[in-house]
């Protein structure tokens, strides 16, 4: 059915194409080309650049609070210059602002960079290109998706400049802290803006997600069977399904919180005495909020990670000049991870007073998810075995991803075990764990994607040597930041403490905190190399050839120009899977998907 629809669209397109053939490029105004564009390639770039701006803001925040943690009470001109006299008087960070920075850092990184930025950029760019479609199923919804994202990001950024400061109840915004303005200044206007921003974000995510699903299911070109799709597309498809099923729950969670905050309801509030008076709310439960939040929150972890894994699959196969090892197992693993991610959320709540029996169920399901994750890691490593590895910057970051996926993954086994979680719950051990999987793995996947598909996005090449420098600074410093945090966790240091100096038992950890902060500062400065390379190459990079990495997938068959409809003539026809690298008996070490099978030649894994 999919191919029928597609060929109808194709006819329509050809008619349209003939009609306006010569005007296509001239008629577009600045507004329709750069702002309200409905072209997936432009929308993808819009997402990427917005995400980069947000990432720089969030990274800057982390430097400010890391300085406070390593040298509490010291006076820094930098902090005063960034935050002014109100929040950084004499260069010392205000405790409420500390919490606000931690909160917004997490929010931006999780949602705006790793969800909107990662899926928005690469699903938009690659789904139509790699399945052989003219564009997304609905260009209009796609455009709306970006602009909701943009407005949402703008509101979140604007909340940094209001009088009481931005939301500061942690990125998980557990009520009652987030519900009661008396509890913390960030729960005044700042939290309202946070909630509005997140609601718009979910709208953006849903519009995008539905589009991705429909495009993958219906607009595949002739011959592009599901089992021939590159793993990137599989990853984006599963990610989009997770998003569509889980993000609406966040909206309901947020709406109930808005009701509690503004309309006097008691969904999450009960028996509270604050600001010198008892509140009328009775019967609600903050644990309800936690369930709703984590019902999104845990699939969200995989919404962040799966696209990065998809990108890595593609880059590792291409750069090792080998088929991805266990293509079907990789798809199966992603499906298993996607399914299981919906029934593990309670492992965030072992210590919340949730029924301990319920906790045991979540221990079981959570540890199950380690199996497909392990399969994926082993398959990546085996893909490199006996390869002919080409160390492009994208490949370096992909290897970095696999390393951090293992390093951060194994500590997940500890945290999923409720018995062991008792003592490290909410400590720096957790901070180390999720930063190594999200802050390293997912971000490395994003970098790999940028370096690999930059030529398709901007038609120019990024500088390789700067890429090498960027990778080595990032990998070493990122491990330097997050590995020592395990040891802080083992010493029992709780997360979100403004300073550890009020507890003598933490006094011997000063040097660990200093190492972490110094690595964070060097690592952050190292990102300057990337930013420079990125923006410089957009305008001055070398012109990209048609297929710089000798890759098999369809996007490299499009001309090196951004044309409406992606392919100038008819759509390409697919004859094989995407991983025929170094296939015996072939002249070159790659066979694009558009090359017909020879007589008696097997396709895909079947041998």
């Amino acid at each position, binding site marked *: 059915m999919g191919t029928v629809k597609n060929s109808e669209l194709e006819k329509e397109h050809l008619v349209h194409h003939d009609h306006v053939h010569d005007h296509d490029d001239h008629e577009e105004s600045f507004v329709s080309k750069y702002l309200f564009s409905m072209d997936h390639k432009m929308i993808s770039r819009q997402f990427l650049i917005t995400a980069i701006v947000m990432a720089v803001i969030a990274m800057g925040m982390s430097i400010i609070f890391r300085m406070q943690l390593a040298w509490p009470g010291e006076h820094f001109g930098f902090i005063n210059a960034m935050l002014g006299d109100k929040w950084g008087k004499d260069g010392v960070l205000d*405790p*409420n602002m500390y919490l606000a920075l931690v909160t917004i850092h997490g929010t931006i990184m999780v949602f705006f960079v790793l969800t909107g930025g990662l899926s928005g950029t690469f699903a938009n760019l690659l789904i139509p290109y790699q399945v052989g479609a003219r564009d997304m199923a609905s260009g209009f919804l796609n455009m709306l998706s970006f602009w909701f994202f943009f407005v949402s990001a703008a509101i979140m950024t604007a909340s940094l400049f209001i009088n009481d400061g931005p939301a500061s109840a942690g990125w998980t915004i557990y009520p*009652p*802290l987030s519900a009661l303005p008396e*509890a913390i200044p960030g729960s005044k206007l700042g939290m309202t803006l946070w909630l509005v921003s997140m609601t718009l974000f979910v709208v953006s995510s849903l519009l995008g997600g539905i589009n991705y699903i429909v495009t993958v299911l219906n607009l595949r070109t002739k011959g592009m069977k599901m089992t021939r799709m590159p793993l990137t597309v599989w990853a984006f498809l599963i990610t989009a399904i997770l998003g569509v099923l889980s993000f609406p729950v966040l909206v309901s969670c947020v709406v109930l919180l808005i009701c509690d905050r503004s309309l006097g309801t008691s969904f999450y*509030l*009960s*028996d*509270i*005495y*604050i600001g010198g008076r*008892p509140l009328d709310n009775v*019967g*609600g*439960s903050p*644990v309800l909020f936690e369930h709703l939040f984590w019902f999104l929150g845990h699939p969200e972890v995989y919404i962040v990670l799966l696209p990065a894994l998809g990108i890595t699959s593609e880059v590792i196969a291409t750069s*090792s000049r080998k*088929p991805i*090892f266990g293509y079907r197992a990789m798809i199966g693993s992603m499906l298993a991870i996607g399914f299981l991610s919906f029934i593990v959320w309670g492992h965030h709540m072992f*210590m919340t*007073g949730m029924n301990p029996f319920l906790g*045991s169920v979540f*221990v079981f399901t959570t540890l199950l998810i380690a*199996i497909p994750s392990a399969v994926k890691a*082993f398959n990546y*490593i*085996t893909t*490199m*075995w*006996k390869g*002919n*590895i*080409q*160390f492009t910057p994208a490949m370096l970051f992909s*290897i970095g991803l696999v*390393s951090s996926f*293992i390093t951060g993954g194994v500590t997940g086994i*500890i945290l999923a*075990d*409720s018995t*062991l979680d*008792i003592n490290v*719950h*909410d400590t720096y051990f957790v901070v180390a764990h999720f930063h190594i999987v999200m802050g390293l793995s997912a971000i490395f996947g994003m970098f790999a994607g940028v370096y690999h598909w930059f030529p398709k996005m901007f038609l120019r090449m990024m500088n*390789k040597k700067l890429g090498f420098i960027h990778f080595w600074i990032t990998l070493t410093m990122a*491990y330097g930041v997050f*590995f*020592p945090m395990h040891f802080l966790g083992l*010493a*029992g240091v*709780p997360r979100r403490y403004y300073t550890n100096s*009020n*507890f003598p038992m933490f*006094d011997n950890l000063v040097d660990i905190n200093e190492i972490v902060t110094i690595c964070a500062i060097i690592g952050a400065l190292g990102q300057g190399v990337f930013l420079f390379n990125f923006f410089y190459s957009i305008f001055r990079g070398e012109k990209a050839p048609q297929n710089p990495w000798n890759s098999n997938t369809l996007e490299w068959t499009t001309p090196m120009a951004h044309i409406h409809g992606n392919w100038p003539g008819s759509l390409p026809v697919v004859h094989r899977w995407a*991983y025929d690298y*170094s296939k*015996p008996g072939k002249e070159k*070490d790659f066979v694009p998907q558009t090359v017909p099978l020879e007589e008696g030649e097997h396709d895909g*894994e079947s*041998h």
Partner: protein
Amino acid sequence: MNFLVLLAIVLLIIAGHQLLRVIELSRGLKKTKEWQVSETDNNMMGKAMFLFMILFFAFFFWQVNRWMDRSLPPAASIHGQKIDDLWDANIYLITFVFLVTNFFLFWFAYKYRGTSKAKAVFLTHNNKLEMAWTIIPAVALAFIVIFGLKYWNEIMTEANDPKRVVIELYAKQFDWTARYAGKDGKLGESEYRQISGSNPVGMDTSDVLGYDDILVKNEFHIPVGREIELKMRSRDVIHSAYLPHFRAQMNCVPGMITTFKFVPNKTTAEMKKDPYVVKMMAGINAQRAKFNKEPVEFDYLLLCNKICGASHYNMQMNVIVDTEADYKAWIDKQKVFKTAVAAN
């Protein structure tokens, strides 16, 4: 100052830009493109990967060697010792996996670095291999789940020792109050609307069970070897009662009573003499001396471990584990709540 920094950044960008232009112009004379990965690049990066692995593992062992003895002292409770054993078993397992898989990753990166002559092997899948690395983790995880849940159920069963000490930990922004059940072993009911200056934890003044309850602040005492049943409440936002030395933690949720039970098995005095703790405190005091702070002695602590507002980082209470006799002497000296109200 800020202007100078900005100026420096701008100059750096311009310098980088110029440098790249020079490199590109000189490249124009050569045949290969800058972005193409040469055999030299592959050779260098492949070796760098291997070198990184060595440094990475060295960094790991350096940290273990240098920082491991700064972790929390061995557990001071009966269930905590079981958690510690389970922890060790799991940590050895994951450390092994971490080292082995990272080794293969970086070793392959080094060994199979590309050359112009080499050709990759066309290998799409291998069912036996894939079965093996599905089943082996599954079996290992089964053991982890079985032992984890066995201990979890033991730890989480309701307190039922008739001689147990029942203590309520009452959290509010930003301090703790401990309420002892008194001679009847039962806590009086609470009612948040009755909270006032003289009734800080909102005890229901009509409930006679509460008349012998005892309220203490700043530090609370517990007897060694007896079951302690903690009941957690909160006045305002979510807090978390974290007693790291006993491997105990539970959130304090407004509108709910949560519980955690444990049996402390080392008194504060014993713990102060424990060789691990002696060494640890020496390290802490050496560090404090550098900052001109007075030396401290070991104490068990209750911390808040759930973000609760501006002073979250300073919500603490000392815990003293006494011998039975010392505990009795201490508790007898404490004022009963009813008396405390009357005194006001």
